[in-house]
């Protein structure tokens, strides 16, 4: 049961994008087309699972003081693997993701899960946690990209949709559309879950690896405040 909850937690209850609000940059940037969103989601999932496994396996070896640089190097290594594989076998996706592919390194979902989960838990749990979070990330990206691509461009995975093709709201595929769709989705999740937040709750920053530094200086931790 607990193993299953490690997997499912990331998909809905602790959805990394909509509930923990991590990884906003790639979410907004690559969700213009459903196919790019799925590619980005799968790439990040691969890095997340691999880095969670390795970090969890090495959790007793890595000295506490230098753990963050160690995690970053490990993550960067896996990102490089993904970059090389995509460049060789899926060049069009590699081109479409562009700069956002190497930027998976600084995606806070990955560092956040390493810091919050993988360095405290066993390998198998960490792998499931990474997989669940990755699926949650991919699904959210897919939903956002579908909304933007269908309403904005009148296509879905590149397939034209008859009436919408000529009546797209093109601003949705551009930058402002990303912000507005993301804002409305979070509002929708708030409405559905009717989350009652404790005023002392650190709000949206709980999953962020920088949250401690921020809150020490009275910043961040209060996006919701």
């Amino acid at each position, binding site marked *: 049961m607990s193993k299953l909850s490690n997997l499912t937690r990331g998909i809905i209850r602790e959805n990394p994008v909509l509930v923990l609000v991590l990884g906003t940059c790639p979410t907004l940037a690559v969700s213009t087309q459903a196919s790019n969103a799925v590619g980005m989601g799968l790439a990040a999932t691969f890095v997340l699972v691999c880095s969670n496994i390795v970090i969890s396996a090495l959790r007793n070896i890595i000295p506490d003081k230098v753990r963050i640089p160690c995690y970053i190097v490990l993550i960067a290594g896996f990102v490089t693997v993904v970059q090389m594989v995509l460049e060789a076998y899926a060049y069009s996706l590699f081109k479409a993701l562009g700069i956002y592919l190497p930027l998976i390194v600084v995606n806070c979902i990955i560092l956040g899960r390493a810091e919050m989960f993988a360095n405290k838990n066993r390998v198998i749990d960490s792998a499931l946690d990474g997989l669940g979070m990755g699926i949650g990330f991919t699904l959210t990206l897919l939903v956002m990209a579908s909304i933007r691509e269908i309403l904005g461009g009148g296509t879905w995975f590149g397939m034209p949709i008859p009436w919408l093709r000529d009546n797209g709201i093109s601003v949705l595929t551009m*930058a402002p559309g990303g912000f507005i769709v993301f804002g409305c989705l979070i509002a929708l999740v708030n409405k559905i879950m009717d989350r009652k937040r404790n005023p002392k709750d650190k709000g949206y920053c709980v999953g962020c690896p*920088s949250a401690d530094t921020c809150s020490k200086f009275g910043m*961040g931790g209060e996006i919701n405040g």
Partner: protein
Amino acid sequence: MVKLISVLMAAVLVNNYVLRQFLGICPFLGVSKDLKSATGMSIAVIFVMCLATAVTWCIHMYLLVPRGMEYLQTVVFILVIAALVQLVEIALKKNIPALYRALGVYLPLITTNCAVLGVTIANLDRGYGFAESMVNALGSGLGFFLAMVIFSGVRYRTETSEPPKPFEGLPLTLISASILSLSFFGFNGIVENLFGG
């Protein structure tokens, strides 16, 4: 010279890092609550962006390319940026305590800021030379500064407003950011018009 000015204008206004390319969204949403921390964060970002670009450009051109190791770009860059931020922090603390008190807080947060890594990689992707890279880094930092300062003014208003319950907090902030981003569309084509291309 004209080329450099057009790179600068494009980086600040047209391809604004936060509002058009979605880089550095976390500090944009998290630290824009008041003008003072927004300014401090932005100055630290400008500083680190320029420094990181200067160092990574040289490392890429003089270390990685001659040895055919461009594939190590991501790993090397993030390490260099992390080390650089640490060094700057130590150096400021020792030598210029006043500046450290103003910026020190923001430095640790910058290591994992995607705008910094983004600008160093983008410079090389576009094949910029050293001068253009530096100007692009400066422009991207200034663009971040502009967006942060404008947005802290917007936040000041939205914080005191009363939206429908589900929109409280982050959703309202994001929708305000959307409108700000839309207003930056007004700068489209400005570089082509001023510099002919």
